[in-house]
């Protein structure tokens, strides 16, 4: 009997088992055939383990880079990537993360059913990332795990219906209808981009980005994982040059410094690819099950979708956004150096996703000028918020990476400020 209890409690305390259990429940609720239930459940379990391993690759790569950056510029540089920080956080807070994500989905359905916000948040990866952020921040306040899960669930559930509602007026302009909503937690920056387009842009009809012609080679910018590798390579190689070969040799050994930096850059991409594979396996069963159940509970539900689903409505704006957002990130970079803030390394990955989406919003309200300024301002805003959150986050023992999107930074800072008000932080 003791042995049974021991096996049971060991199992339940494993985050990977918990997540697999959620898939199991989802599959049963959908009346999936036996073999689907088995393979789906085990694949989710495997997916969680794969995700954690990706986190280990990233940490192993970031540690030397941090030391080299410190030696070269005496600054702490941070590469914000949600996938990386969540996978790292999962090692310590996996159980709370999984529970918050799961109950957050359920609360989303309840709120969509009983309030007038009929949104079903289908970006499951963001639900998991928000579970990571809230479990880390709330645990840091010294709250009991049960309290962490309860408050985290409320935050995730409420955000799931509120953020799509906030961006909906702009989404109507983008998609021309009510069929889809925005389900991506950089919503604040998209709304800011929408307003910026209105204020600084021109006529959205006649000056639309979709009337522009772009050369075909620019499609290279549509490979985000490669972009990330190249970006991290550039940061690493510049840091290596300033730190000097003897210092770098501590990590690189006999390998040429530039070659080593190149491998490091793409090792980062490799880590992210592994995490993506894991998250993909986790979401493969969870999200369709959630959607299936939600549609029964909330018949008039509007699905809130991941940000690139709006790219098809203005593909040229996405390119404009890529460049404008990168410029915004560079402006923020110089602000950090001037003010001595934590340096957020400009990340091309975010220029693609967040810059692209911000520009689609800006284009819908202010044409090409709206797209440009919308994405530019979004880039500055996002990185400044990241830089404000990092000191809080870094004090918890995380280094080198942090959450990337605006809403995560804002929620993190809010949790910290409210905790401080109650004398917890």
């Amino acid at each position: 009997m003791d042995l049974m209890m021991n096996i049971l409690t060991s199992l339940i305390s494993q985050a990977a088992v918990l997540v697999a259990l959620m898939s199991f429940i989802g599959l049963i609720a959908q009346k999936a055939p036996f073999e689907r239930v088995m393979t789906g459940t085990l694949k989710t379990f495997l997916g969680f383990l794969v995700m954690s391993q990706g986190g280990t690759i990233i940490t192993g790569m970031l540690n030397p880079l941090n030391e080299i950056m410190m030696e070269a510029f005496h600054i702490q540089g941070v590469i914000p990537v949600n996938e990386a920080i969540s996978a790292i956080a999962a090692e310590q807070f996996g159980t709370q993360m999984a529970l918050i994500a799961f109950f957050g989905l359920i609360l989303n359905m309840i709120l969509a059913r009983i309030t007038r916000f009929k949104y079903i948040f289908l970006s499951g990866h963001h639900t998991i990332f928000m579970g990571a952020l809230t479990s880390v921040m709330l645990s840091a306040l010294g709250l009991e795990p049960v309290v962490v899960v309860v408050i985290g669930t409320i935050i995730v559930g409420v955000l799931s219906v509120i953020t799509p509602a906030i961006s909906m007026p702009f989404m109507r302009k983008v998609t021309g209808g009510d069929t889809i909503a925005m389900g991506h937690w950089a919503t604040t920056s998209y709304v800011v981009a929408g307003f910026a387009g209105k204020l600084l842009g021109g006529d959205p009809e006649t000056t639309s980005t979709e009337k522009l012609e772009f050369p075909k080679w620019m499609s290279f910018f549509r490979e985000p994982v490669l972009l990330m590798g190249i970006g991290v390579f550039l940061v690493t190689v510049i840091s290596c040059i300033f730190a000097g070969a003897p210092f770098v040799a501590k990590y690189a050994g006999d390998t040429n410094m530039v070659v080593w930096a190149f491998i490091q850059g793409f090792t980062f991409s490799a880590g992210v690819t592994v995490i993506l594979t894991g998250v993909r396996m986790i979401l493969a069963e969870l999200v369709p099950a959630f959607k299936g159940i939600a549609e029964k509970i909330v018949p008039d539900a509007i699905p809130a979708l991941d940000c690139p689903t709006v790219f098809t409505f203005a593909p040229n704006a996405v390119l404009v956004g890529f460049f404008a957002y990168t410029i915004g990130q560079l402006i923020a970079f110089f602000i950090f150096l001037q003010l001595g803030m934590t340096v957020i390394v400009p990340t091309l990955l975010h220029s693609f996703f967040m810059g692209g989406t911000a520009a689609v919003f800006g284009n819908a309200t202010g044409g090409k000028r709206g797209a440009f300024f919308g994405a530019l301002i979004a880039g500055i805003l996002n990185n400044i918020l990241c830089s404000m959150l990092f000191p809080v986050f870094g004090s918890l023992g995380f280094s080198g990476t942090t959450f990337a999107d605006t809403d995560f930074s804002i929620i993190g800072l809010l949790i910290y400020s409210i905790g401080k008000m109650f004398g917890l932080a």
Partner: protein
Amino acid sequence: MKIACVCAMGLGSSLILRMTVETALKQLHMKDVEVEVVDTSTARGSQADIIVSSHSFCEQLSDMGVAMIEVVNYTDANYIKEQLQKILSAQ
């Protein structure tokens, strides 16, 4: 038959597409179709019979020589159903 739903990271949009494609397949009473979610790099090795994605990714993968369905609205199952019917009747 195998259908690959493609997006940049293979996380969000492609999963939405998979659910839409599965709805369309159900309406067409088609079973034994494998629908997978992939990113652009993996898509090339996927040996799929049909690719479902946005215009830009379909363009990028056009040299694969497989049938493609370009979508604008990721949740429009009727559109995917019509396109699937077109592809199947041409084969």
